[in-house]
């Protein structure tokens, strides 16, 4: 499969928790790169990761990672991947060095190499000053960094990051995203990370896999999404009439339930043009704000289509 440039390939995967269908006929081929896994809560993102990692055995279907069958080679696969779980899973009463080296050793690293590498990755994620401190005293952000260090210790080919920025403050979040980007670039790693924060995926992902109700409903190219040559703005006029809709018809105008007009303004048109057009036609703009990002629009559209379908 890797011969075909696919590092992960899933075919007709079904998985249910008793009577609840978590994954429904998943077909997915992933090439090298950074993939964002996006979906509302309960969409099946974590379950999909767990199936790929071999934690959960699918009731139907087949798949492979780096040419290894996910059902029969789960041990081999886990040597090649690094997993950062969403849940706060830390072994208590240990310091960061011990826990990171311990996980490296379990993966098959010689002990002295594991210790050396633990220092390196902890330094890399920015925990060098806290590496000898008990993990019990760590903040949420530090724990997230530690989990990333643990996932990286054996230098895996593919990194699975489940909600890596969960519970982090804005500064730490940006640093985490910067780390993810850096790992992908300098470490030449393939990264699959799930998130429900669209801006995170937009910031680091190359492609986005949109999931809803246990199904993959779309795979979008983020570069393509971002290259859309317009920005969406919401405006509130003193009076919304049919004339107003006609005046702004060049901007793919839509009226929202809350009395706003949604305009798609090409990036080459300065926004003050909108004010000018409004004034020339006897309207006053009372509110003017940037609307959802392009990825958000796509996400909402796809989810809406899927829910309606």
């Amino acid at each position, binding site marked *: 499969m890797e011969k075909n440039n696919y590092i992960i390939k899933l075919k007709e995967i079904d998985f249910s928790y008793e009577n609840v269908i978590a994954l429904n006929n998943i077909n997915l081929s992933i090439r090298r790169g950074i993939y964002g896994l996006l979906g509302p809560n309960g969409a099946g993102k974590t379950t999909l990761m767990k199936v790929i990692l071999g*934690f*959960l055995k699918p009731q139907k279907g087949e798949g492979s990672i780096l040419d290894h069958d996910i059902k029969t080679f789960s*041990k081999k696969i*886990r*040597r090649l991947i690094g997993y950062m779980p969403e849940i706060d899973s830390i072994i208590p009463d240990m310091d960061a060095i011990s826990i990171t080296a311990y996980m490296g050793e379990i*993966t*098959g690293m010689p002990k002295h190499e594991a210790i050396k590498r633990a220092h390196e990755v902890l330094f890399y994620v920015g925990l060098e000053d806290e590496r000898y401190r008990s993990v019990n005293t760590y903040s949420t952000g530090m724990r997230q960094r530690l989990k990333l260090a643990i996932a990286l210790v054996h230098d895996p080919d593919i990194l699975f990051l489940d909600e890596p920025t969960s519970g982090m403050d804005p500064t730490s979040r940006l640093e985490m995203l910067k780390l993810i980007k850096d790992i992908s670039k300098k470490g030449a790693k393939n990264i699959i990370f799930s998130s429900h924060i669209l801006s995170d995926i937009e910031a680091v992902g190359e492609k986005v896999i949109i999931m809803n109700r246990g199904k993959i409903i779309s795979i979008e190219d983020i570069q393509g999404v971002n290259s859309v040559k317009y920005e969406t703005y919401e405006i509130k006029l003193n009076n919304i009439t049919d004339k107003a809709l006609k005046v702004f018809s060049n901007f793919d105008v839509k009226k929202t339930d809350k009395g706003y007009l949604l305009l798609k303004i090409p990036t080459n048109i300065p926004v003050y043009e909108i004010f000018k057009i409004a004034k020339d036609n006897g309207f006053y703009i009372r509110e003017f704000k940037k609307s959802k990002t392009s990825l958000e629009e796509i996400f909402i559209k796809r989810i809406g289509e899927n829910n309606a379908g």
Partner: protein
Amino acid sequence: MPVREEGYHKWNGKLKEKFINWFPITKNGISYVYHKKKSKLLFYFASMPFFLFLIAIYVSEKPELRMFKNLIKQIQTDALLFKTYYTNGFLMFMLVILTLFAGAELISRDLRYKSLSLYLSRPLTKLDYLKGKFSTIIFYLLLFTLLPGYLLILAKFLFAEHFSISITVVIGSFFYPLLFSMFFSSFILMLSSFSPSSRFINIVFIGTYFVSDIIAKILSNIFHISFYNIISIKELFVNSAKLIFGVYDKSRNIVDLYLSIVIILLLTIVFFVTIFFKIKKAEV
């Protein structure tokens, strides 16, 4: 905590496929128990019977101390001495405490802190994980049963002018500690896999051990039948030691002694199967 400007460094080493891939778990567990508060005190108390019996062996082997040997019934024969060593109330109590101390948190802590996914995202199966945990507790139990047993045999060899020892004692000193350690290790790990609460585990473990003994004693005293001893965990091991070391009244019916070993083995199997299914079902 800024992201380091040096960037990500690749690791150029090679991962090894270890035959015993769960061994780091055992090492970590042993170290964790060793570094727990009051562990040295517990080890000291658990090894006290060994030093006492070391003296007893010295007394039994030295002709000049024969008058003391004649006074102490338990050191008349090797089999009786070793049976007494393994089943003395103090050692058994200390081993029960040691089991709790070393084993109660082995799995429950991972359940409490949801660290099972950390282990299982590595090249380990759930069975490997259990092997690692099981080896930790079995290490400590054998350390205070099997090792002292053979050290006592060695002491006997060193102290005796004409060394001789029954094969029953040599084999018994291997099988009895193994039986004991397997039973208690599987029992505590089963409880540990049931609940993230170590208080619950402590109460159930200690409760089962002592309550079973109290009930057995009450029933035996009311009905004057020693057969009821098989209700008691402690007496199950006393009976097993009698049979293994051949220290029993040859004229009486010994079905309860055989039954004791069968019960221990059956319970051990039940505990193992329960742990396995419990961990298999545990959500990662």
